[in-house]
Structure formats: C-alpha cells, structure tokens
C-alpha cells in the first residue's frame, strides 16, 4: 500500500498559450506542495507571468488545466479564486482610491465580514509601512508603495495560496525584509506561496522549492537543493538557460 500524496496547493498540467505565432507557454506541468515556498525563475519573456495568469484565472489557457487545492480553476473559478491571493504583474490597481479604501474594497470583494475588515486593513497598513499614506490615493504612490499595497490586497482575505508575480520589484530593503518574515511565518502555518522573481539570491534564501522556466517550458523543478545540486542557484540557472557571455561591452561604451 502506497502513501497517497497530499493534494497539491497548485497543480498545473499541460498549460499551453500561444499568441499568434509565438508560443508563450508550451506545456507547463508543475506541482506546488501545500506549505511550500515555491520560486519560479526564468529569463525575461520565459512565460512566468503568462503561466501565473493561467493558474489564477486571469488568462484562458489554449490547453491544459490548473487546480488549486484540487479545485479546477477554469471549471469552478469562484471557488478556486476564493482561495487565491493574487499579486499580478503589469496591471493597474483601482488607483483612484486611497490605499485604505483599496484594501477595504478588496476585502469586500472577497466577502470578508464587515467587523473583521478594519482590523485586517489596519494590520496590513502597519505591516507594509503604509500607515502614513493610508489616506493618499494610490495613483500618487511611488512604484514600491504601489507594489506593497497590491501585496497587501493579495493578503487581506487570508488566502490558502499566494501567487506573487515579482513581489519585491522596487520595494525597499527594509520593507522587503518585513514582508519576507511575514511570508515565512505564513508558510510555516501551512500557507503556500508561489513567487516569480529574477533574483536568484532571493529565491535561494527564501524558497524551499524552485522551478526554472525558459521559453515557455519547465527546465527543472523540485526542492532548491535538488535543482541546484553542488552549484549555486545562479550558476545552475545560467547553465540551464544559457545565454551568458563574457564581454566587456562594446568599445564605444567604454569611457577610457
């Protein structure tokens, strides 16, 4: 008798997306175990955002399926989305609202009970160091503050799965460290995080699992130690993806 593996927090099977002639994602399979801190790394244009969009119900796949804790995202989107906290990249927020209004609005969209909303919003404002900017409209936030408020929106309904696309882009190091702590204790308590990033150091430091994705395919996936072997994650990544060239840059760019 074999032990049945736990239902994955996120299960992607054969996801395909083509835009015209270009294959953005060409058959991605991924299993994210519950309670894991999963890193998704890949060069620019690898298909990370496209994959995550299909996993969270924002982009309809041409083929394949995605399940969140066993719920099919494309068959029962409402049930699946209620479990996901999503920080999407490259989309605006309703940025005419103040930070506090935006958080309250998001909580309402997820039917958080009214009596809990203000406490949660208040905690998140402290967590993200956004207390002073609570009454400022989000359009007037800096890039880092916008990222933080979007991250807070992803957390406000206490999701079981957090999908974070480039969460630390332009976030200051102090805030990033604070957020890291929160995410760590979140996974320790059974929550699952999948995070896409360009920063290998960050992934090696924070994540216990990693998938390397390039040209729309998963090149390697597993625990961080499995994937990197004896090398650093950075070197392993370059070896997998290729494209590193040693050069001093063009002659005309050199200043002396």
């Amino acid at each position, binding site marked *: 008798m074999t032990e049945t593996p736990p239902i994955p927090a996120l299960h992607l099977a054969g996801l395909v997306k083509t835009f015209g002639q270009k294959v953005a994602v060409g058959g991605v399979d991924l299993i994210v175990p519950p309670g894991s801190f999963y890193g998704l790394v890949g060069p620019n244009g690898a298909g990370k955002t496209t994959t995550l969009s299909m996993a*969270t*119900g*924002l*982009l*309809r796949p041409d083929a394949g399926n995605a399940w969140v804790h066993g719920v099919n995202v494309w068959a029962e*989107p*409402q*049930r*699946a*989305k*209620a479990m*996901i906290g*999503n920080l*999407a990249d*490259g*989309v*605006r*927020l*309703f*940025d*005419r*609202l*103040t930070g*506090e*209004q935006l958080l*309250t*609005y*998001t*909580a*309402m*969209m*997820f*039917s*958080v*009970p*009214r009596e809990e*909303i203000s406490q949660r919003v208040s905690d998140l404002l402290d967590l993200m160091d956004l*207390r002073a*900017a*609570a*009454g*400022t*409209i989000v*359009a*007037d936030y800096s890039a880092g503050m916008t990222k933080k408020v979007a991250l807070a*929106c992803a957390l406000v309904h206490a999701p079981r799965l957090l999908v974070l696309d480039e969460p630390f882009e332009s976030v200051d190091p102090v805030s990033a460290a604070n957020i890291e702590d929160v995410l760590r204790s979140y996974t320790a308590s059974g929550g699952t995080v999948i995070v896409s990033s360009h920063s290998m150091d960050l992934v090696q430091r924070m994540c216990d699992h990693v998938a390397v994705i390039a040209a729309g395919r998963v090149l390697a996936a597993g625990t961080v130690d499995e994937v990197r072997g004896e090398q650093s994650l950075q070197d392993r990544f370059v070896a997998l993806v290729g494209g590193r060239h040693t050069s001093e840059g063009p002659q005309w760019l050199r200043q002396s």
Partner: protein
Amino acid sequence: MVATVLKLRYRVLGNTLARRPWQLVGFCFGILWALSILGIVISAMAATGALSGLETVRPIAAIGGSALLLGWVIGPLLVAGIDTTVDAEKLAPFPLSRSQVMTILTATGLTGIPGIATSLAALASVVMWLRWPVAVVAAVPCAVIAVLTCVLATRLSSTMSTGLGGNRRGRELIGTVLLIVIIFAGPIITGVLALVSGAGNIGEQVLRVGTVLGWTPLGAAWAVPGDLAAGQYGTAALKLLIALATPELLWFGWGRALDRATVSPPRQTARTVRAGALGLFGVMPTGGVGATWARSLTGWLRDPRYLRQLIIVPLFPLVFAFTGGIQGFLFPLSALLSAFILCFVGYTDVSYDGTAFASVLSSPIRGQEDRWGRVLGAATVGVPLIIVIAVVTTAISGTLERLPAVLGASLGLLLVGYGVTAVSSALIVTPVAAPGDSPFKTVPGQTFVSGLLVFVVMAACGVLGAPALGVSLTAFGSGNVLLGWIGLAVGLVVGAGVIVAGVVLGGRTIEQTGPDLLVRIKAFPVG
C-alpha cells in the same frame, strides 16, 4: 530633425493601420469625409466669389475663417480628441530645444489630415477673389498665415488642457468650462447678434458680425484680401498687422505654457484624506455587490470620465429654457434627453476599469454580482438626477400634471439602458482615456467599428424602451393624466424586467468573456 519625426509619425500611423484592418476602414472613411467636406467648401467658396458682390464676400470670408479657427481650437477638445501620437511629453527625453520641439509639433499639426485639409481649403479660398486680382495675390500669403494660426492655436489649447499642461485640477476645470461654453454657444451667439443688431434681418446681422470679426485675430487674415480689393489699403495694412501678430503671440504663449508644464508636471499634488475616511466603502455591505457598488459609485462621483457625462445633463433644461423658453415644448422633456445621454454611458463600463479589471477577475465574485454593483452604482446617481430634473422642469413650466408621463418616458429609457449596458459591457471594450488622464485626450486604437457599436447599443435601448416611450409620449402629447401614469408603470415594470434580464445574461456572459476582455484591454495601446 523635423523630417525624422514626421517620418516616424507616418510610420506609427501605417503600423497601426496595418495591424487593425477595421481601423483602416475607419481611416478611409475619415479621408473620404475630409475630401467631401473639402469639395463642398471649395464649391461654396467658388459660388460665393462668382455670384456675390464684394460687400458680401468680405464678411463671409472673415466669418468662415473665424469658424475654422474656432473649430481647430474646440474640435479636438470636444469631438475628435487631441492627437497625442507626437506630443511634447514624448519628445521630452530627446535633446531638443523648446523651439525645436515647437517647430516639430507645428509641422506634425500641419501635416495631419486636418492640417492638410485645412491648408487645401485655405489655399482654395483664392477662388472667392477671382474677380479681384489684387486680392488673389494677397490671399495666398494670408491663407498661409491663417493655417499657421490654426495649428498654433490648437497646440496652445491642447497644451493647456491635457498632458503636460498645469495640474490635474486645472485641466479638469478648463475642460468643464469649455463644455459649458460650448453648450451655451447658441444662446451666447443669439445674445451677441441681438446686441449687434441695430438693423433688421439676420442676413445684415451676419454681415455686420463678419465685419467685426475681420478686426479680430480670428478673422483678420481673411479680411485682408477683401480690404485690398475694395481699395482700403490702410485698413488692409492694419489687419495684416493683426494677422501677423496673432501667430507670434500664440507661439509665445504656447512656449510659456510648455515651460510652465515642464516646471510643474502633472500629479504634483498628493491628495490625502484623513486616515479612516473610507467613503462609500465604509457604508456598503461587504460582498461583491456592495464592493462593486461602492467602487462604481465612487467613479461616478469622482472620476472625470464619468463626471463629464453627468455635467452635461443638468445643462439640457437650461439650454432648452434659453432657446425655446420655459413654455416651450422641449423644456419639460429635458429629463428624457438627459436620460438618453445617461442610458448608454456605461456601454463599455469595463473599459474604464482598465487593467485594474484584473483585480475584479482575481476575486471570487460571480458575474451577476459585478453587474448588479455596476447597475446600482450608475442608478444611484442617474435615477435621482433624472427624477429631480423631471420634477423641476415640469414644476417650472407649470405642467406638473405631465410629470408621470415625463417620468415614464425618461425612467423607462434609463432603466432599459442599464439593462442593455449590463450585457454590452460584458462584450465590448474600447480604448478610453486612462484614469487620471484628461477625458478629452484621444486614445489611439478607437476604431470605426467600436464607434458603430454605440449605435447598436442605442438601438437596443430604443427598441426595448419603445413600449414605455410610446405610451408616455402619447400621454405627454395628449395631456392625458391617466395614460401618463400607465406610461410610468410600463416604464418601471419593463425597465426592471430588462435590468434583471440584462444582469442575468450579462453576468453569465462576463463569466465567460472576462479573461478575454482583460486580454483585449491589455492589448490597447497606452495613450
């Protein structure tokens, strides 16, 4: 430098048209339209020149020229939108002096379709003067001055009203004031005419206005040839001076406006409210409907893109009162016309979300909840507004007995409109100005077809609203009070039915189309 930018501009146009066949169709229609207008204008000018005496041609030239200039200033703000393919903001990163930027922008203005059409029309205006050779010689340089004035004036006004110009508040203010001025243009012109008129009929008044305009920067360039033809060399010289000074002044003013704009770029002021001020989000019940309702209503009350539609509405009664008097037939029907404007404002409501629609899509709300929230948001503003207009206008005109009929027609149309747009906005997205941008800014990618879809939506509103409109308007015409109440009942019942059907259908639709709408919104060129 100028040539490079011009080439680039046509390359952008070419690429856009090549990628969007329907836009190419729209573009071709645009050219045909410009050509036909050009043909009509030139033949009209030729006829005037051949058939009328100098005393008629002179004021007509001045009036036509002034109208052209006004069209250049106002048209882009209200109708066509401001072409932002090449603007000062996009040229800012390049090492260009201010006057180089201005030269480039003037050149692109001259070589756009409106610029070419205007240049052709202005040069063709020579045909008016064929019988007076000295005027023909003068008309050509004067036409050049006039066209240049048009382009510079439109650049100045767009710098002041969009993009870099001033702060957001200022831009919104300018836009609103302009709108009001336009709406009152009719009454104002009537008033001015009445002032000018000492003497009799409209024709003479018009000629008088033309003569006056010839002395203003608006029409001076167009008055010079006529003065020469009449042998009034002194006044011709003076008017030429005015005509030459105008573009100089516009250039100077535009330069100042650009300078001010770069010193104080938009979004300088952070508006901060007291922490804890949740606005509507503290009031509405939690859940998808409440959240969407609060967001939508906040948009209707604060977002200039919605407000722009709302501001026009209360002006209808005023315009009708001015033109037809409060005893006029149209005045008590103001509510119906206001409802007509309001009923399809939200026909591409999702477009106004922009890519923020992704956050709606990320949430677990059902399509119906989203639809209800949007309908309620629109109705919370629209319904009371229409009722107030109906009550006030019927009360003022002393036709309160027709109030039920007026309400029946206008609410009937409005509610049906909410139902129709609940479906249409699940199917259609069009490029719109981004939140916070000037609502007057044109957005690349607005296609001929998406323009036509407005008429489809209007037609659907008309068909579904027909029962209420039919009964209510009959009641209004006949003054039958009972029939008026029936009309109101029909309007409310049919309207409620259409809303429910629209929400159910639209809700089901958007659950299917949501991700595709987001893909389309993301693909829109950023303005």
